[in-house]
């Protein structure tokens, strides 16, 4: 985990590093510890820059929120119903982006959490 590498056996991007990249997932999977793992990656500065989901996943959302609250680490999580073609290019239309899971107040010592 300290390397930010994908270690899951059989994963198509096995060995690749998530740091600074946008993760696109149809949906989350497996361990309910993913929240801590995501928060830890963000704390270490090797987490993804953002996550795009095909279905809501509160496990990943809360990991990102906690990292934001504790460390000011930003990792937007976007849920879309578009087909997630990994080879495609997406445009995010700000007018249609509906920020919902944002902490209302900034945490102590963290930068202001912008909507």
């Amino acid at each position, binding site marked *: 985990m300290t390397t930010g590498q994908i270690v899951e*056996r059989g994963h198509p991007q096995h060995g690749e590093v998530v740091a600074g990249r946008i993760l696109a997932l149809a949906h989350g999977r497996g361990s309910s510890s993913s929240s801590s793992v995501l928060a830890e990656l963000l704390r270490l500065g090797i987490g993804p820059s953002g996550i795009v989901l095909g*279905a809501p996943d509160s496990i990943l959302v809360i990991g990102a929120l906690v990292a934001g609250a504790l460390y000011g680490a930003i990792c937007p*999580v976007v849920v879309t119903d578009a087909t997630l073609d990994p080879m495609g290019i997406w445009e995010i239309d700000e007018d249609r982006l509906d920020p919902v899971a944002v902490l209302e107040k900034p945490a102590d010592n963290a930068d202001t959490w912008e909507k």
Partner: protein
Amino acid sequence: MDLTADDRAALTGDHGEAARFCMELMVAVGRADDAPRLIDIESAHIDGCLYHGRAGLDFAERLVAGGGEVAVPTTLNVSSLDLLHPDLYRGDLETATLARRLMEAYMVLGCRSTWTCAPYQLEARPRFGAQIAWGESNAIVFANSVLGARTNRYGDFMDICCAITGRAPLTGLHTDHGRIGTMLFEIRLPDRLLDLDLTYALVGHIVGRMAGVGVPVIVGLDRRADEDRLKALGAAAASSGSVAMFHAVGVTPEAATLYTATGGAEIGTSVVLDSAALASARNELSSETGTLGGVSVGTPHMSISELATLAALTAGRRAVVPFFANTGRDTLASADSLGLTKSLEEFGVTLVTDTCTYITPIIGPIEGDLMTNSAKLAYYAPANLGVTVCLASLADCVESAVAGRPVTSESPGW
């Protein structure tokens, strides 16, 4: 999302800073999930006590500093350390110290030091219909499927937020419509395989992989699918996929009939689970090299009946390779009083409590495959421990440990 006066009071800090922070996170997650409102929960099970790095510890200590206290009976999942057998730990001291601090933070918050991934094996367990907030993927699926209690897949951070606020967003598996079966699996297996523990783990592995975020309905299981076997099935499905609930028609409490399990809906093509499918699943999970390095069972934690079965299989015999069995400390206490512990230790079983061999360095380097009857361990161990694994029934694990080489009697003609 509608908030009650009490919810708002928590948000403004009337119940303390920890409760305020937890409610703030809860509201954000609830809104992300489109929850209409929050509901009360009766109990919680915390997964966040397993050390994954500094972030989890910072979070827990922040809650302690904020005067946090759980509002409902709350149990704790496995941690990184076996506190009853501390010499088993082979990791570094710094990690152990931080892991210990994390465990203590959760105890200060008022959680019970149960340290098990199988809280449904404790004396007090949720009744049918109870709204609960449980973490730990295998416990979630067991609570929903086998007990008929209601929980979503709560992960680290959210689990303790629910415990401290005593609330959870009304979505998903907390609702009737969220529990309806969405995908059909048909079992077509001979009696020989329905009588075998390993079968259920393999069924779970396939179901998990194919079910995605749906609620699988399995037709063709019968009373031979007892709690221990359903536990193995659920654990496998929660590892290979994100199954949080399954129905086994005629077996689990919300699936007396297929109609009940699906709410009368037509749920499309069924997947047939026959011997060939199981053989294929087994090959997928096993990376065996043919030599036996050690055995690990009890992922999830062995129940008292499983320990009794293991004791019967091993009585008067000796293992020639390391043999680990994970269980909860409460179960170990029962095993002690039944005389099982002594018998197992004479065989050469190393009983591990409070943690699990696949998540913390206990097994150490072995020469050869790690044999297990757990699809969950087989799934995670290669990446976590760097071992090759061989999947076999509990009986074959014992025979192999005695022989010092893999003995898989049931494999020909799966």
